[in-house]
């Protein structure tokens, strides 16, 4: 019964949403701003005809060019952590070696960033990876990991400065035991 009923006309707001109001016809006095391409084909045609400008449609880049471009972009991404190193190093130096909430948080971020980056390495480069540059991408990824390792090293340096690395004898003192004397002596008051 319900199927026989014709579907009700869509409400006004649905129609407004699906068909936006036509852009107001511009007076021909104002050209479009440079670089603006109207999606309206009429207008494109009109501007073309009115300007008479000859603009060839840009040739799509070849796959080789695309690969080179992507590789370039990938290298940029891979070396980005290294560029942050000096900044981080200065920040770490400035915060000092005391155990305070700020320095602890900064050190935590310092560790969290590189580790997360290395874990997400596939995702980061997935867009840029193609069949053609797969070999080169290995190099890029290695560089990325290396740069992040540098950042980690900075963090370790900082943690060491804060005295949190068990590198000295005193850190293992609790596991050392006193020597047991084989003989025992007792004082007996006379």
């Amino acid at each position, binding site marked *: 019964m319900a199927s026989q009923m014709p579907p009700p006309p869509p409400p006004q707001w649905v129609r407004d949403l699906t068909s936006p109001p036509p852009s107001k016809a511009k007076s021909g006095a104002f050209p479009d701003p440079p670089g603006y391409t109207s999606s309206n084909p009429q207008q494109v045609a009109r501007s073309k005809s009115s300007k008479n400008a000859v603009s060839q449609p840009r040739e799509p880049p070849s796959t080789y060019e695309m690969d080179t471009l992507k590789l370039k972009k990938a290298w940029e991404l891979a070396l980005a952590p290294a560029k942050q190193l000096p900044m981080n190093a200065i920040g770490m130096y400035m915060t000092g070696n005391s155990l305070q909430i700020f320095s602890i948080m900064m050190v935590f971020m310092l560790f969290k960033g590189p580790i997360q980056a290395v874990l997400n390495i596939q995702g980061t480069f997935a867009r840029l990876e193609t069949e053609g540059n797969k070999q080169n991408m290995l190099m890029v990824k290695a560089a990325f990991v290396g740069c992040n390792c540098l950042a980690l090293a900075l963090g370790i340096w900082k943690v060491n400065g804060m005295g949190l690395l068990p590198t*000295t004898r005193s850190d293992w003192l609790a596991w050392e035991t006193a020597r047991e004397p084989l*003989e025992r002596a007792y*004082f007996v008051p006379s």
Partner: protein
Amino acid sequence: MRLPLFAAVCILLRTAVAVFADEAWNVDYHYALLGEPQEETTFFHQPNPTSKASLIYTLSKRGFVGAVNPRDGSVVWRQLLSPNLTSSTSQGFLRAGEGQDTIVSGYGSQVAAWSAADGRLAWTVDMHGPLKDVEILELSDGKIGSGAKDVVALSGGGSPAVQRLDGASGAVKWQHKFQEGDEVYQLSASTTEVFAILLHKTVLGYIKIRVLSLDPVNGRKTSEYTLSSENELASADTIISVGANSASPIVAWTDAAHSVLKINIIGTKTVSSYNIEKQGGQTVENIRIHAPYHTTSLSHFLVHYQTATSHWADIYHINFARSITQIAYSLPNISGKGSFSTSTSDANVYFTRITQDELITVSSASHGVLGRWTIDNLGVVSAPHEAIVPTHTVSELSVKGDSVSAIRTAVLLSTGDWVLLRDSKPVWARPEALADITSATFATPSVLEDFQHKLDVETHSNFVGAYLHRVKRHLEELKHFPSYMSSMPQRFISGFLGTTDEGAMASDSFGFHKVIVCATGNGRLVALDAGSANRILWSRTAVDLGSSETWQPGLSSRADVIVLEQGSGKSQQTFNATNGDPLPGIPDTHDLQAGPRVQYTLRDGVLEATRTDKANAGSVWHFTPMDGERILHLVPRPSNDPVASIGKVLGDRRVLYKYLDSNLALLATANDASKSAQFYVLDTITGSILHSSAHSGVDLQAPISSILSENWFAYSYTAEASDASTKGHHLVVGEMFESLVPNDRGVLDAATNFSTVQSGTEPFTLVQTYQTPEAISKMAVTQTRQGITSRQLLAVLSDVEAIVGIPYSALDPRRPVDRAPTKDEQMEGLFQYAPVIEFDPKWFLNHQREVLGIENVLTSPALIESTSIVFAYGLDIFGTRLSPSFSFDILGKDFNKFQMLATVAALAVLTFVVAPLVMRKQVNTRWQFT
């Protein structure tokens, strides 16, 4: 840069704080004791003639003269007469003139007058000989109210003499010297004459009593006679009494068998003789005479006979006209021991008799009972079924008509407690026996010990067994659940308001309520609660000591068992620490690991060590001091001395390893001829000297004390003035290391065990000397459960009557000398060495209290790591709790529980109020367009 500074400030702060204001008077307790009062030198007296209230004055067995407020038992004032306690055997005298505001004491050879109200010294005179008697002259020379009454004092020794001293200034008015030969015995003064009683030894060995009568104005001898005491008097012990300062003084004596009583009124030659009839077939053990001490009161006196099982008394009247004494009436024989006291009211004399369950007052004139009270409870702690016997009493009473309206009786009991009874109700009790503690020890109450034992079982059995055990234990604990729930609101309120319920030993989760068992000089064991002040847990007789016997027991504890060793044969008795019940068995002496064992003892000035294991028993080594040297004392390292860290962490995080050997001992010797003192650190297995130091120019009269703990030792001595230095008290601290090179464990390196016999390693010792402003007479060190907490050296300063807790960081021998500490040293908490240690007022554990005559300080760990329990004894008792590194594992009293709960509550309310608001806002942001 800021970090080391901060650390340094932290450490300075840490050393500066020892006693918190909210802990003073709260965690510490103090018994200001006098010692057991003596019968002849205890009385009620008005501190000045105008005051109505009187104080109880006493000169105790321990050489204290003091006044006690009869209202609450607090000490109004006290003065220690003999700073040197070893000479406390001499008898003392304490006299108060009627209507005088000073009291006069005689002790040793010193006569001193004290202001009765506040105990200020009025004057003191040295008599150049042991005092035999001190009396106050109550002369009837017409000068009434002419200020202080004069004092006559009799001194014995090489040149026996009687001296009259001015009551106001102590100046000698006259002196009468006796020829040598006769022993001077006592003085007696009537209103007109001064009598000196001398004992003349006859050829046969008997004693005759010589009486010299002196003119009180110029001290000249007016008459002399000898009493025909025949041959009853074999020794001076059987002279019962020389009545002094009464209207008519008497001399009374008996024979050795207590069969006859002879009485002479001094000034007459007649001797009245009375046969003592035996009642109930028992021989009379003791006869005492109680007479009023006022010249204005009636000349009646009471003779008290005591046998082993019963006692009775006769009341005598002196007939002046005929110069004879006669029995007025008798008080009936009552079984058990009793005591009598004399009180006066105007001229009337009253006698108060106290037995184990009754208090009876009679007038001296007739036998009618003026007042009778039944004593139910004396308010003192004693062993179950123990008969508490009154030893001696003083009483003060007021009479209205024919009955006593009120009576206050201060009675010394056989338990060593001094109790004041108002009528028959105990008002206060002072545990005076605790002024004479010969030995003391800490013990753990059984409740805690049981719990610890159960936990031990669980850790040592297998997994399933331990689980079952735990379930069973928890089911058993359900029995206590109702009582726990019912006490919950009370606990909550008390915890919330900060009023902690002291005294509950079972709910002591911090281990503060340890048991301190003390052996007192009267042969008893008394147990105190270390966690709550003024609480005696139990008290029982350990041995029956005679009046002049002493004992030197050794007390030790193994968990909740007290072991008492006494006598030359070292007979052992064991007691339960919680309730004092004697236990049948004798525990193993050394339940420690097997292996070679060495025992060392100090005998005849030589230190001897013998091996006690069966394999090769025999003498191992002995330490004989050099010629002219004598051993002062030996301090072994405590057997229970846990050390948390075996090394010291330096500022650069390297480690300096401590030389830890549980078999160390510190020996101090002195050379009287060269005035030098030597200190040796000995390895008691081999007898080798690990460290020694000698100091010349030492004042050997001053105290020398020492301590050995962990890997460090300390000793103090007083150096005499010399050309190079001035007189001063020195404190030397030495610390021993395995090696002075960091990260180096010496020759043995990582070996897990060692034998000094085979390896013979020696420590590297750093020593530093400090000057202290006071002489240290005794040292102790705080102990905590695991030894993590930093330590404090507890030093008894006998000159200022105080105990100070010196933080070890202030004594560290590694403090840099003559230079500022480097960054690393600052990190470690070291600060520049200064030769003088000034005792910070905050270090004084006793703060405002005055702790007199402390002889020993004991420390014991509590269950929580931060706290050490301290107990000091001697004349006074003082105890406290110490947290040398702050109370890091317990909330302090300053923690505001109310604020915390209020904050939580406010946050909860806020959450409930705000939650709907936030919800509405979140919905609105989705749906509303602005």
